[in-house]
């Protein structure tokens, strides 16, 4: 789908804050409420807006540690990737799973209450999974999301 300038402005506004009503958004962009609604609907139908996400302060709800794990599978060919992906994705502390090409096979984002809790998740839930080989952990210090090329 190709976007015009108004679509782009609308996307930028929704990425910054999706709580705004169509009336508020329309007023900012000089569009009527129905026109704003139609544009959002079109962006959703084209799959450009994948959904809405609640933004929580992880630390304030008790998750003080976020770790990115690079996981290499030890026994490729013997472990079904589908089984591995299903099992790893089912761990509640595992927030994202990406199958990647390069130094590692999977990249995981894991949250934990603190480092001791992370160690528990890593040892009991992740390292015990069949096929897991080398694991590299990097503890997240800061994070910034950018609007991207819109």
């Amino acid at each position, binding site marked *: *789908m190709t*976007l015009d300038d108004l679509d782009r402005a609308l*996307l930028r506004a*929704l*990425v*910054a*804050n*999706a*709580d705004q009503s169509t009336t508020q958004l329309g007023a900012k962009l000089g569009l009527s409420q129905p026109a704003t609604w139609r544009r959002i609907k079109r962006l959703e139908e*084209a*799959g*450009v*807006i*994948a*959904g*809405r*996400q*609640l*933004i*929580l*302060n*992880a630390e*304030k*709800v*008790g*998750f003080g540690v976020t770790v*990115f794990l*690079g996981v290499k599978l030890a026994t490729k060919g013997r472990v079904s990737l589908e089984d591995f*992906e299903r099992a*790893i*994705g089912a761990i*509640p*502390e*595992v*927030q*994202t*799973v*990406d*199958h*990647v*090409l*390069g*130094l*590692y096979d*999977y*990249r995981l*984002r894991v*949250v934990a209450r603190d480092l001791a809790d992370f160690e528990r998740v890593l040892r009991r839930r992740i390292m015990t999974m069949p096929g897991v080989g080398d694991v*590299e952990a*990097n*503890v*997240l*210090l800061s*994070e*910034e*999301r*950018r609007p*991207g*090329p*819109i």
Partner: protein
Amino acid sequence: MLDDIDRRLLRLMQSDPTSGVPELARVVGLTPARVGRRLDRLREDQVLRGTQARINWPALGYAVAVSLRITLDKTVSNAFDEFISAARDVPEVIEIQTFLGRVDVRLSLIAKDMPDYQRIYRARILTLPHIADIEALMTVATVKSDESLPL
């Protein structure tokens, strides 16, 4: 501090951020006014920071996603700040994270296709200041991406 009802509200909102106060009130068995007050308090305490639309980049023609793991030259005193501020100027960089570990900084980079990636990588990434080493992980498939917290 959060109590069980707060956690329940946050769980419900996390799984469906579009659910309104009347709906939440019905599920947790409180009046809408009381739910509204709880949400106001969670917002005041900065627990709840709002909602964000998520863009599906492939739908806009950005088919390539690469995770760049960067080690910086730490002999330069302000290497982090200078690198990050320069990385912010690259429109295709959608995430900047700093780490404690083997990797110093990670950039999430998107591109339309491989030639586009090659162009951005050469012209915009390799020219960023104070890079000691770069490793690239190309995303083949995203298996899970909801980023919800196990409340």
